[in-house]
């Protein structure tokens, strides 16, 4: 990267010696733009999936539910006993009573209209926020059995496992796609560089014949190629970010499936796409030109 300043200034004169040739130029920009566009989309997907996995895994793993059955006074006594147990259990961070209204809202889809829920003898629900590293669920259950036999502790492990698995596999899938795109971009830029070099065999020959050194020729090709990869991928990345911007976000209702907008510092990640494309282009041109040069006197 020592030569970067020279790339952007010093060798404009050398770069003029390589014909601007619509063919190689447009396709390099095009290819970079398309790949960058998809890279940004997939990157956003990966970030969103990661967030989803964290959310689901995190919030569910960090919480449990305590149900206290019974009628009238009994419930109060049992609940107080259970809360006592929780308070003295290492790993329990906070507890929250779930109100009747909230409980009804949870049940409605399965039981029908509000009226129907009314008649049900609902258990008392307590949401427990825990530190899963320190909490020993088995010992908690044993103690509850002794002190508040009507209280049942549920750590959500069943539901959690499948949701977290989904989100994590989605994340892995997205990063796999991203890796695929980067590899494809490298391959494509490598081929495009080779093509540009092949299309300009005569130019290279002429430059060699009048006494240009290899490094001079490499730089002459590199500048425009890198510029195009940078420009194209910046355009593609901008387009991708724009598309994500107009997409419905995770917070809107009804869009939990495609809320892939980046959040917070995540916006910065797609900005890395053009520099990566530039570095790939830089390497690809150097490789392609030198490969051609060694076959030429």
């Amino acid at each position: 990267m020592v030569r970067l300043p020279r790339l952007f200034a010093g060798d404009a004169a050398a770069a003029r010696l390589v014909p601007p040739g619509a063919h190689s130029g447009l396709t390099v920009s095009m290819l970079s733009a398309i790949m960058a566009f998809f890279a940004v989309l997939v990157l956003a997907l990966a970030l969103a999936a990661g967030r989803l996995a964290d959310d689901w895994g995190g919030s569910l793993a960090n919480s449990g539910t305590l149900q206290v059955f019974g009628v009238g006074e009994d419930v109060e006594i049992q609940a107080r006993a259970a809360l006592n147990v929780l308070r003295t259990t290492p790993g329990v961070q906070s507890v929250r009573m779930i109100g009747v209204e909230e409980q009804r809202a949870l049940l409605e889809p399965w039981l029908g209209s509000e009226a129907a829920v009314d008649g049900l003898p609902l258990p008392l629900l307590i949401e427990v926020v825990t530190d899963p590293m320190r909490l020993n669920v088995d010992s908690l259950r044993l103690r509850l059995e002794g002190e508040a036999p009507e209280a049942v502790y549920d750590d959500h492990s069943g539901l959690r496992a499948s949701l977290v698995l989904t989100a994590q596999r989605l994340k892995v899938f997205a990063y796999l796609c991203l890796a695929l795109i980067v590899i494809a971009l490298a391959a494509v830029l490598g081929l495009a560089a080779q093509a540009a070099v092949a299309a300009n065999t005569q130019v290279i020959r002429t430059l060699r014949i009048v006494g240009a050194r290899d490094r001079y020729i490499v730089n002459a090709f590199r500048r425009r190629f890198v510029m195009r990869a940078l420009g194209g991928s910046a355009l593609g990345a901008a387009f991708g970010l724009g598309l994500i911007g107009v997409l419905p976000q995770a917070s809107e209702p009804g869009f939990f499936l495609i809320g892939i907008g980046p959040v917070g510092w995540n916006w910065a990640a797609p900005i890395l796409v053009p520099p990566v494309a530039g570095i790939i282009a830089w390497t690809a041109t150097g490789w392609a030109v030198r490969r051609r040069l060694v076959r030429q006197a």
Partner: protein
Amino acid sequence: MIEFEDAAFRYGETDVLSRLNLRLTPGSFHFLIGPSGAGKTTFLRLCYKELAPTSGVVRFRGKTIGDQDRDAVADLRRAVGVVHQDCQFLDHITVGENIALPLQVSGLNVQERADDLASLLDWVSLNDRVDAYPPQLSGGERQRAAVARAVILSPDLILADEPTGNIDWDMALRILTLLVELNRMGKSVLIATHDLNLVRAAKSRVQARVLRIADGTIQPAAADL
């Protein structure tokens, strides 16, 4: 200047040149004649290492060319000016820029040499075509531009491959005069041509030796032409 020792060259299966033992001394003026397809262009390409001999050795200023690295070969080429038979230009830059190309790739300041360039263009009558692009030149104009490019670095050795094939006799004599002038300044000149009139015209101005290429080898021609 250049020395061939048992050098031979073949394209694939076909031998073109063999048993070359030859020495061009600094300041000499040579013609290379021979029928079409005899190997004149091939010989010149061996001289500036666009081709490497398939056997034997070519030396430039005492150093074996084949042993040198690519940068050294680039430097060698700055000391050799070549007029190609199929003039090699970059079609997307102007004629003036093409002629100045050896200056540019050598890292020299083109602006500083603008005067040299102008008087050279004058000599080959191209000053009004300097901003045209090579495809806009006539055949003869292209050939003259190629001569100008070959001599702009004032190289020690000038190799000209059929430099007058497409130009009229008056212009051919002007170019010959230019090359003779450079030879008087101590440069070596080697002209491959099929035009015996040109050889005769040169003999009256400079002590030119004639090499004849035949049957894959190069021999000094008999004095009479």
